[in-house]
């Protein structure tokens, strides 16, 4: 059994952006394996240079239409850090609240539309709708509720317009937020029901010993700020990212690969957050995780679908708590005066840690920008997963092995659009 086999998926479906996979087997041995990102490179870091510090949230939002709040928040954090300003109390709560909306919307999209069809053997959620109409409709309604929270606070759900360095342009009234409560209560219970459903999916028997990396914050499940921690003892301030992580450029990907300087791949996203912070989940979300049989740490990437559902429940419960305690802040934003300095910011995008660094001058013009999105951090982990998954499964026919490997990639909810924004390139002059 030493025949050579090649499995190639030229265009991965149900991921955000353009990616491909290539596997070369000799007998049972993986000779070559690549998770390829061929999405055209986009120059965000280059064209941020010379723009005003206040423009970074709206410009970087355009890196990703699925997680714009993550980009806006990390950019605001970095600019406020550069200026020595901290957002507190009501404005901090609102920033966390709108982020909850993005987690609900993005996770609902992934769970129901991109991932569940894999386990149930459908090509899409639309195809799944004829057999599971209630589930697909519940998924659509959950997504809509996340979107509605984002649009009440942000003006619209894709590329919200109400986020600015220092806070918001306009804060919502208490009545505007209270109107969201019944939907969020429904969403919380729907998430509980969904968790029971997905926990029963047929998961491959596959565990990996990951180094999980996520933000951590005392007393709360970190979303919009925190220190960077890992399950192997890393505990650093966001500004020390560059001392512990590095990026490299490989020929087969238009996105840089990030790795730990001390080791190799690491894993960011829901599994990492859950592993590091599950003791800080809200009460109902904790119960839902327990009912779904998750334990304190989950190392089977296929079960990330269950963790995402737990995070939907958490985001709903947290949003309800924040709305309950809401008092309209006296001013929609604090003044942020730029100064000649370097600012660092990070937050937990639905897909994992999103890091920004800006060098700005005394007038507030950006001198340099550096953005590390979650999918570029997960690229190595994805390849390591595939390499570990194949041995023992080489007896599977090509189409079956390919289907399972595609699923393994989709476990990360890879956002390829996000990952290709920071490359420079050779230019063909037309």
């Amino acid at each position: 059994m030493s025949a050579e086999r090649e499995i190639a998926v030229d265009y991965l479906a149900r991921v955000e952006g353009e990616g491909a996979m290539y596997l070369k087997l000799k007998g049972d041995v993986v000779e070559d394996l690549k998770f390829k990102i061929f999405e055209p490179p986009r120059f965000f870091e280059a064209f941020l240079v010379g723009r005003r510090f206040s423009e970074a949230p709206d410009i970087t939002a355009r890196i990703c239409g699925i997680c714009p709040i993550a980009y806006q928040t990390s950019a605001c954090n970095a600019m406020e850090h550069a200026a020595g300003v901290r957002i507190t109390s009501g404005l901090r709560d609102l920033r966390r609240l709108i982020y909850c909306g993005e987690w609900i919307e993005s996770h609902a999209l992934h769970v129901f539309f991109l991932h569940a069809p894999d386990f149930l053997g459908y090509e899409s959620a639309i195809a799944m709708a004829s057999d599971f109409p209630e589930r697909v409709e519940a998924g659509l309604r959950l997504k809509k509720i996340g979107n509605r929270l984002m649009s009440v606070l942000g003006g619209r759900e894709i590329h919200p317009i109400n986020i600015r360095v220092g806070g918001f342009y306009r804060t919502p009234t208490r009545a505007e937020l209270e109107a969201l409560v019944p939907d969020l209560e429904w969403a919380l219970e729907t998430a509980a029901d969904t968790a029971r459903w997905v926990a029963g999916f047929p998961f491959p028997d596959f565990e990996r010993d990951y180094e999980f990396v996520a933000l951590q914050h005392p007393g709360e499940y970190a979303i919009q700020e925190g220190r960077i921690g890992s399950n192997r003892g890393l505990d650093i301030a966001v500004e020390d990212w560059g001392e512990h992580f590095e990026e490299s450029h490989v020929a087969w990907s238009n996105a840089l690969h990030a790795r730990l300087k001390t080791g190799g791949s690491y894993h960011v996203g829901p599994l990492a957050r859950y592993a590091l912070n599950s003791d800080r989940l809200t009460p109902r979300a904790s119960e839902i995780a327990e009912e779904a049989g998750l334990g304190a740490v989950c190392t089977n990437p296929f079960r990330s679908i269950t963790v995402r559902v737990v995070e939907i429940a958490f985001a709903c419960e947290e949003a309800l708590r924040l709305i309950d305690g809401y008092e309209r802040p006296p001013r929609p934003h604090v003044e942020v005066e730029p100064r000649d300095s370097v600012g660092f910011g990070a937050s937990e995008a639905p897909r994992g840690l999103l890091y920004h660094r800006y060098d700005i001058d005394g007038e507030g013009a950006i001198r340099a920008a550096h953005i590390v999105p979650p999918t570029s951090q997960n690229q190595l982990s994805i390849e390591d997963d595939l390499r570990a998954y194949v041995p023992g499964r080489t007896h599977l026919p090509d189409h079956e092995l390919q289907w399972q490997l595609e699923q393994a990639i989709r476990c990360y909810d890879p956002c390829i659009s996000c990952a290709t924004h920071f490359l420079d390139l050779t230019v063909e002059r037309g």
Partner: protein
Amino acid sequence: MSPARPRLAVWKFASCDGCQLTLLDIEDHLLDVAGALDIAYFPEATKGEVEGRYQLSLVEGSITTPHDAERIREVREMSETLVTIGACATAGGIQALRNWADVDEYLSIVYAEPRYIDTLSTSTPIEHHVRVDFELRGCPISKHQLIEVIDAFCHQRKPGIPRHSVCVECKLRGTACVMVAQGIPCMGPITQAGCGAICPAYDRGCYGCFGPSQDPNIDSLAAWWKRLEVSDVDLVRALRTFNAYSPEFREASEAYERRA
């Protein structure tokens, strides 16, 4: 026997995925659309693929690589009606900022292996490459306008997408003019409606994400902004965001850049 449903394809070029996500964001109508049209190619949502011709193609993103310049021609050949969606596809998007950049300077921001990357020095709208049947603007597009375009296609009529300015939407919404009442610089007077005039309703000036309205009077707006003490440099910056390479914004930004 009822005729076969028209086939819909959704194509992506250089973009953030936000405009095609809008198709999934029409939550209440998504299954209706899936009933009226056969969603034959939409990789973000489905693994299924139907080869052949498509009656309606929605195209997101701009052309930034030699490969994509070829691919859009193939998409055009396969498509009976081709509609571009969003600022990238209709105006080159934020990516078009590279069209003014000194490319050597971009290259001087050194990356490990720039030779691995294949790209063009420009980001251009789809209509610079192939014939386009309709352009739907916005960064991102409006879901209501997307439904209108799909509905118009299904009934073989012209989409009712107004070309007037955001000011009209502020009046309809009952929002007091932020420029007059609060002295906030606003691009609403030169920007096409469609978003629902969100920014002024949130005490913010419009930033032009739907691109130029029909016959925009940019010089008049520039004079108003001058009274609000906005410098020509900041005016150029405002014109050069998500629709920078639309002809009207581009011409004006170049004229004011020369003056600045």
